[in-house]
C-alpha cells in the first residue's frame, strides 16, 4: 500500500467516523461541583454503553461551574449551592436538584464507637465556635446520659478549601444557632473561629484519624468508606437519628419542594421525625433557551435517565436518589421552562 493510497484510506475512514459519530451521538459537556463527580461519571459511563451518547463532566468546583454556564461554554453547570431566583432569572437558567448526599460529624475518641454519642445543633455550633473545649463539657454530657465521656480537649477540624460540604454544614449551624449566624454565617468557605483547616474530605478524615479528641465533618460516603466514627444528631423534631439512607431520604421527602422557586431549597434542618439534619442536594443548571439545542436535549434525556434508572448506581456509591415525588416536579419544570428557538419544549 503506497503512502498516497494509505493517506486516502485514512481520510475516507476519518470522514466515515465523523459522519457516523455525528449521526449517532451527541456530546454533552458539563462542569462544576466536585461532590457529585463520582456518581455523574458513573452514570455517564453506564449511559454511554446504553445509548452511545457521551457526557464529559469536569469537576472544577461549583464556582467554576456557575461561571461556565453563565458564559454558555458548557451544556450544563453543576453547583452544590443553589442559585436564588434573581440570579436564575438574570442568567436565563433553570435549576433542579439531581442527587442527594449527607454530611456527618466524625469524631476520634477512645472507647466511643460510631453512633454512641448524640449531639444537637446548638451544641455542635458551640463546639465549632470553640466555646465548648472539652468532651466532658456539661452540654455534651447532658445529651448523652450514661456515656462515659473523656476529659480530652476538643480539636476542631474543618475544610480548608471552598466546598459545598462546608456551605451546607455552616448553613445548618446558622439555622440552629443565632450565635453562629451572627458571628460566622454560611458560605463555601467561612472565617472559622476555631480549629485547623484540611484540604478536601480526605484531609479532614485524615486529621480526625490522627488527632485524639478531634471532631470534623465529611460526606457520608466518605465516613462510611473510611470507617470513621460518626455521631448521631438530634433533628428539628427533637428525635435522635443516625446517618443512613432512609434518614437522608426522609429529609429530602419532607422538604417543601413545591413552594421553592427554582428548587432553591437547602435540605438542612428539615422537618420530620426521621430526617437527618445535615442533608444536602446538589443542583444542575441549564439555560432556558439553549444555544446548542441538540446538546441540551441530550442532556435532559441523560438526566431523565439518571432519575429513572440511576438509583441503584447512586446507592452503590452512597448517594441518595431524589424522591419520586420531587422527580415528577422536576420533569414538569423542564416541560414548562426549557424551550427551543421555536418556543416548543425541548423535552419530548
Amino acid at each position, binding site marked *: 500500500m503506497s503512502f498516497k493510497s494509505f493517506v486516502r484510506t485514512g481520510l475516507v475512514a476519518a470522514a466515515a467516523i465523523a459522519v457516523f459519530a455525528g449521526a449517532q451521538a451527541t456530546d454533552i459537556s458539563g462542569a462544576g461541583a466536585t461532590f457529585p463527580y463520582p456518581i455523574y461519571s458513573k452514570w455517564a459511563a453506564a449511559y454511554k454503553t446504553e445509548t452511545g451518547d457521551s457526557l464529559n463532566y469536569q469537576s472544577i468546583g461549583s464556582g467554576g461551574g456557575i461561571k461556565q454556564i453563565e458564559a454558555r461554554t458548557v451544556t450544563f453547570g453543576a453547583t452544590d449551592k443553589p442559585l436564588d431566583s434573581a440570579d436564575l432569572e438574570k442568567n436565563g437558567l433553570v435549576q433542579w436538584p439531581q442527587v442527594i448526599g449527607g454530611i456527618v460529624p466524625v469524631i476520634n475518641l477512645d472507647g466511643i464507637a460510631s453512633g454512641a454519642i448524640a449531639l444537637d445543633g446548638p451544641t455542635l455550633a458551640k463546639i465549632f465556635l470553640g466555646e465548648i473545649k472539652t468532651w466532658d463539657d456539661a452540654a455534651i454530657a447532658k445529651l448523652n446520659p450514661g456515656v462515659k465521656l473523656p476529659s480530652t480537649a476538643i480539636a476542631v477540624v474543618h475544610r480548608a*478549601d471552598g466546598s459545598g460540604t462546608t456551605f451546607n454544614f455552616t448553613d445548618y449551624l446558622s439555622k440552629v444557632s443565632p450565635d453562629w449566624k451572627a458571628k460566622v454565617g454560611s458560605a463555601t468557605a467561612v472565617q472559622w473561629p476555631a480549629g485547623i483547616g484540611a484540604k478536601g474530605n480526605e484531609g479532614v478524615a485524615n486529621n480526625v484519624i490522627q488527632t485524639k479528641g478531634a471532631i470534623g465533618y465529611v460526606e457520608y460516603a466518605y465516613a462510611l468508606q473510611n470507617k470513621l466514627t460518626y455521631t448521631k444528631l438530634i433533628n428539628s423534631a427533637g428525635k435522635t437519628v443516625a446517618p443512613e439512607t432512609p434518614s437522608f431520604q426522609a429529609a429530602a421527602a419532607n422538604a417543601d419542594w413545591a413552594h421553592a422557586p427554582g428548587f432553591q431549597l437547602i435540605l438542612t434542618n428539615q422537618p420530620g421525625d426521621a430526617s437527618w439534619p445535615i442533608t444536602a442536594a446538589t443542583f444542575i443548571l441549564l439555560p432556558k433557551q439553549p444555544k446548542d439545542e441538540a446538546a441540551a436535549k441530550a442532556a435532559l434525556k441523560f438526566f431523565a435517565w439518571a432519575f429513572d434508572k440511576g438509583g441503584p448506581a447512586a446507592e452503590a456509591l452512597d448517594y441518595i436518589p431524589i424522591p419520586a415525588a420531587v422527580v415528577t416536579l422536576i420533569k414538569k419544570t423542564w416541560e414548562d421552562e426549557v424551550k427551543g428557538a421555536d418556543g416548543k419544549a425541548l423535552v419530548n
Partner: protein
Amino acid sequence: MADIAVKGGQVAYEDAARRARALSGFKFRDTTFHWLTFGAAVAVLLILGGVIASLIYGSLPAIRAFGLGFLVSNVWNPATDHYGALAAVYGTVVTSFIAMIIAVPIGLGVAIFLTELCPHALRRPIGTAIELLAGIPSIIYGIWGLFVLGPFLQQYIQPALIKAFANIPVLSTLFAGPPYGIGLLTAGLILAIMVLPFVSAVARDVFDTVPPLLKEAGYGMGYTTWEVIRNIVIPYTRVGVLGGVMLGLGRALGETMAVTFVIGNADVIPTSLLAPGTTISAAIANEFTEAVGDLYTSSLIELGLILFVITFIVLAISRFMLMRLERQGG
C-alpha cells in the same frame, strides 16, 4: 594558473557574484536570527506584562471595594463578602522567614563542607543528593509533611518545645500549645527542606569562584580553615550568597502544594508558631474553585497580585545582587 589567466575576467566576475550571493545569504540569515531571538525576548516581556495587566484588571472590583484597607485587614469572610489580605500575607512572610532561618545556615554549611573540607571522592555523591532534594515534587513534600513530619512533631518535638519555653516571657507565646502537629512551624520546616538545595547550590558555585591565591595567602599567614572561610571566603562571596538566599526565598514565598498540606489553613494571625495559619498561595489554591461571586474571586486575584509583587521585589533584589557580583569579576 594558465587557465585562469586565459578566462581571467569571466572567472573573477563569477567569483564575485558567487561571493556576493553567499554574503547576502549570510546577511539574511543573520538578520533573521537577530529578529527571531529579539522576538522571543520581547514575547517574554509581553507575557509578563500581560500577566500583570490581567492580575490588576481582575483585582479591580476588590481594589474598588476595599482600597488600601485590603492590605491591613485580617478579615477573610466569604459569608459576609468582606476580605483582607493581612492573615495570608503574615503567614506567607512568617513561614518563609522560618524557612530561611533554618535553610541558610545549613545550606551554607553544606556548601562550605563541599568546597573546603570534603574529600574528593564524596563531593559528587553529596552534591547530587542535595540537588535531588530540589527534584522532589512539592506534592510529595506535602504528603510526607502531613503523614510523617506532622505527627512526629506532634508527638515528640512540640510538647517538648511547649514545656521548655513555658516560663520564658516571649518564647512562651511563640511556642504556645496545643500541639496540632501542623501549623506555621511545620510549614516553615518543610519549606526549609525545599529551599535548602537552592541556597547550597548557589553558595557552592560562588565559593568556587574565590581565587585559590587568596586562600593560600590566608593559610600562609597562619589562618585556620575556619578563619579562612570566615575572613576570606565569606566576605569575597557575600553578594553572591545573598543572591542565592533570595532565590530560595522567592521559591519559599510562592510554594503552594506542600504548604497547604501542613499549615492548617486557618484565616487568622496566630501568635504561636505551633498554631495553624495560612499563606497567600494556599488560600488561592484552596478557595478559587468554589469562589462564587465577583468580589470573592476578585479578592483572591488581588491576593495573587500581592504575592506577585512580593516575589517580584525579592527576585529583583537577588538578580541585582548577582549582577553586582559578576561586575566585581567573580
